[in-house]
């Protein structure tokens, strides 16, 4: 008779607890149908009914009920991107579990999320009248068991990412999309470390994620249709416009932008022009929104360096070999906007 699926649209805290360990999957669904204000029914869950016919929506003791709550998104890593992505989700009414192993970074995360939400409101990037969803923080991934999707946003290092993704794959329900947020690491390289490579895909959010409406989405060789569709529904609920691309080092944006920024650094290094002059020309003559060096400061120079190394190792393109000036700045701890100094000086470090 096979497995039957029932769909329900009501979420209860007790029910979510009861579902753990049972054969079920949670699906992002209906984002186009239900508006963000109707968050309680924004997502639908499909629940497997076993051969016995027992409806697993009922807990082991037959209990039901509890307050209605939306399934949450787990974000791993409370660095610049993790905090930004969490803020984007919270601002669109999606509850977030933010996981970070560094104690001081974890402790500071809620205040940083708060500042992001204020910036988003200031610039009109989020609906002003809507209260943000609930943020939970944790040092452990264990709480991600009920997550409807996991976004991994740890350091741009294949081994670090693989470790987190592998752990997440063992914790979440089968079929839960695992999304690696990366600027350059090929998704298929990470797929070997997860038990369910078909659930894995990539995103490359720009910084800050709520100010930039377009998101690069990376479909790996082994990415399944269901995971991709679920991720696209999530992005739609977050009011982002996805562009799905293939899986090569740096994908599209980093493959083009990062060597270009590297060249801009080289121009400054050689004394041809100052950072201000390079940016002024790229902005004024070529229509670049902020200039490559201001963009570098916003990306984070450490992240840019990691990404260039990934590109250089995998493509052999000498244009991707990090310039000495960039390496020097990172070694000196001048990482851009987030530390208050990079190619420019910043008054307040808030992002």
């Amino acid at each position, binding site marked *: 008779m096979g497995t039957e699926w029932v769909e329900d649209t009501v979420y209860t805290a007790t029910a979510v607890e009861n579902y753990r360990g049972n054969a079920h999957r949670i699906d992002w669904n209906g984002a186009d149908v239900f508006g963000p204000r109707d968050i309680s029914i924004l997502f639908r869950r499909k629940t497997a009914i076993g051969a016995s016919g027992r409806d697993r929506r009922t807990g082991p003791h037959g209990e039901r009920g509890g307050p209605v709550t939306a399934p949450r998104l787990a974000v791993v890593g409370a660095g610049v991107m993790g905090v930004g992505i969490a803020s984007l989700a919270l601002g669109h009414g999606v509850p977030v579990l933010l996981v970070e192993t560094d104690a001081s970074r974890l402790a500071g995360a809620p205040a940083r999320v708060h*500042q992001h939400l*204020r*910036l988003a*409101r*200031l*610039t*009109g990037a989020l609906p*002003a009248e809507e209260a943000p969803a609930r943020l939970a923080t944790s040092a452990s991934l264990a709480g991600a068991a009920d997550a409807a999707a996991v976004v991994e946003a740890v350091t741009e290092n294949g081994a670090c990412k693989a470790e987190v993704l592998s752990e997440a794959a063992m914790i979440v329900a089968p079929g839960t999309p695992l999304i690696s947020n990366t600027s350059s690491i090929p998704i298929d390289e990470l797929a070997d470390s997860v038990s369910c490579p078909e659930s894995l895909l990539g995103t490359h959010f720009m910084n*800050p994620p709520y*100010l930039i409406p377009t998101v690069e989405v990376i479909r790996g060789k082994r990415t399944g249709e269901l995971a991709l569709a679920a991720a696209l529904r999530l992005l739609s609920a977050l009011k982002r416009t996805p562009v799905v691309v293939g899986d090569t080092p740096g994908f599209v944006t980093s493959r083009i932008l990062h060597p270009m920024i590297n060249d801009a650094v080289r121009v400054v290094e050689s004394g041809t022009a100052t950072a201000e002059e390079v940016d002024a020309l790229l*902005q004024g003559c070529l229509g670049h929104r*902020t200039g490559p060096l201001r963009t570098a400061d*916003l990306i984070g120079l450490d992240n840019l360096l990691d990404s260039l190394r990934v590109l250089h190792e995998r493509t052999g393109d000498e244009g991707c070999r990090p310039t000495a000036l960039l390496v020097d700045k990172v070694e000196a701890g001048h990482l851009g*906007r987030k530390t208050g100094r990079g190619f420019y000086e*910043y*008054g*307040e470090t*808030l*992002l």
Partner: protein
Amino acid sequence: MTTSSTGAATAQEIEQELSCHLEKRTKRSWAPEEDLFASGALSSLFAMELVVYLEKAFGVMIGGPDLRMENFRTVRAMSSMVLRLGGDAEEGGDA
């Protein structure tokens, strides 16, 4: 943190301190009614930096309804918002 501890700052004091801060940060001077963001040289990220600066320097809390670009567009707009929010000099500095 640089205001006196004798109560509310005047519009002139606020504008002066604000202009000074802007000149230091942007390496140019700004007329009181000049639009900081019109040329595109300053971004919305700079506006958020101004929020943090105003709160620290003048001891105000800029909440929900005031978080609009219009309030940060000119020196005058910012100073009148600070005045309206109390601009209590005694609250200045670290809370």
